[in-house]
């Protein structure tokens, strides 16, 4: 099986976000990076699928050419090879352009099964998976918490507000992975050593122009100063009074 795990390098979730001098982008100075949380689930599911059914796991990313530390880490956790679509403008690439570039690559690779995170924790769009599948004419199931594969098809469970949906899909397919699907493994020394010898290829993506233009970015408006209404259970009447009288939410 030709399995692909798509991963994105994003600022670490404990990072404070600062606005750059141009007022239109993120100040990246001092930022540390990680593989997006949900993409770790995608990689793990790809590796488990290979372990159960055979095949090869390609780790695919679009990003900077100096992002290989995080990609080697994915190889240490069980990816067999990596493909980096080098895009110096990766932080401002919109979801359509990203989806088109990934779709072109996935189609050329003739992938059978592609795993992505439910959402990247930087832009929070949750769009690239289903968009890429639509451009390819492939199946896509989003927010998946359980997966069973058959011959040329599969069944996934996805989490919705109403409950758990069971979805049947045909292959090739893009699956976006939600928390609950698996527990990602840690890399070990053997994996780290092996990763150094695994192939990592860089190429240029087929890029469409961005349609999205950023006109401004800003920190969220500060919240009005709050106050401590009191200590212990004795403060409850004062809280109720504040919620009714001032905040008018009761």
């Amino acid at each position, binding site marked *: 099986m030709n399995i692909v795990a798509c991963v994105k390098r994003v600022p670490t979730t404990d990072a404070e976000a600062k606005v750059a001098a141009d007022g239109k982008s993120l100040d990246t100075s001092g930022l540390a990076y990680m593989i997006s949380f949900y993409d770790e689930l995608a990689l793990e599911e790809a590796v488990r699928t290979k372990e159960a059914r055979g095949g090869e796991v390609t780790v695919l990313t679009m990003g900077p050419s100096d992002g290989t530390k995080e990609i080697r880490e994915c190889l240490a956790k069980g990816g067999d090879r990596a493909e980096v679509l080098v895009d110096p403008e990766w932080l401002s690439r919109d*979801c359509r352009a990203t989806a088109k570039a990934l779709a072109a690559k996935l189609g050329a690779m003739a992938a059978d099964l592609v795993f992505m995170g439910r959402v990247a*924790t930087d832009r929070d769009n949750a769009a690239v998976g*289903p968009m890429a599948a639509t451009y390819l004419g492939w199946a896509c199931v989003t927010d998946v918490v359980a997966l069973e594969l058959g011959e040329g098809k599969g069944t996934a469970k996805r989490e919705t507000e109403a409950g758990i949906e069971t979805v049947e899909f045909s292959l090739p397919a893009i699956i976006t992975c939600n928390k609950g699907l698996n527990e990602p493994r840690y890399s070990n020394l053997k994996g780290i050593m092996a990763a150094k010898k695994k192939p990592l290829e860089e190429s240029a993506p087929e890029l469409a122009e961005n349609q999205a233009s950023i006109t401004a970015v800003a920190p969220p408006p500060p919240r009005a100063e709050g106050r401590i209404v009191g*200590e*212990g259970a004795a403060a409850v009447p004062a809280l109720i009074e504040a919620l009714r009288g001032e905040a008018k939410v009761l």
Partner: protein
Amino acid sequence: MKPTLVFVEHSNGAPRRASLEAIGAARAAGAEVCAVLAGDGAAAAAPGCAGAQRAIVLNGDASSPDALAEALAAQVRAADCGSFLAAATSAGRDLAPRVAAHLDSVLFSDCTGLTAAGEGLQATRPWLAGKIIAELTSSAPVFCATTRLNVFAPSTDGGPGECTEAALEGTARTRVVAVEAKADAKLDVKEAPVVVAGGRGLADAEQFKVLEPLAEAFGNAAIGASRAVVDAGWRPHGEQVGQTGKVVAPQLYFAVGISGAIQHLAGMRTSKVIVAINKDAEAPIFKVADYGIVGDAFEIVPALTEAIKAVKAEA
């Protein structure tokens, strides 16, 4: 401005509130709205689409998201709409990217603001789970976006003056074959107007349940949880609020025994009113809270529960 097509979800013969909010968002930005509904009960729900000038009911099997997305994109073209909106629900966030791709248009997910810009719309949306707010315009043929729940007001206008039918046709590569409803009909943490959230300060899974009577006393509250308690297995991951969980914006958010890690604050800081209960007066959560009580949650929460019951009994 060209009209906006809004995908409207419905249940029990009425549009979902989140979808009415999406219609309200388009109307407030000055657009006329064509509501599109699909699935069993769509015709019954169509007249309830407050603020829509017209409605289209798609007849046919709505169990395939890819077929439905193809049909929605066809309606956008047929009605010459300049924009497409859906609520940022599970269904909306699944469908909208597919619709956008059919229209070869970029998508802005989970928007917290929509305003008129020339002949079209522009979006305000959070990045990094709300640590940054971005203003975006689109040169796409169709402006496509989903609207965050509990942010936009539904329109106070009446239902559509005109309702027509069309066929739901498209290629199905995926199909929903079963929906296992939640054991209880509780609201999802993303759509509940009140969220009662707990963290590691509640000691263990059993003692966390001190929050349940408080949520029940509200009648419209959902339980939320910090990442620490979800990772510890006290609560299901569907309840997790934060950068690697759900981003919520309820009217009223209680953070009980949650210290306020930056990832958690990102997920709830746009709540209208935040109440923090924590024994540590220096906890970062108090910096975003409107009201705080310092002390033992196991004393405060039961007293608060009784007080909320009394308020609700008066109402």
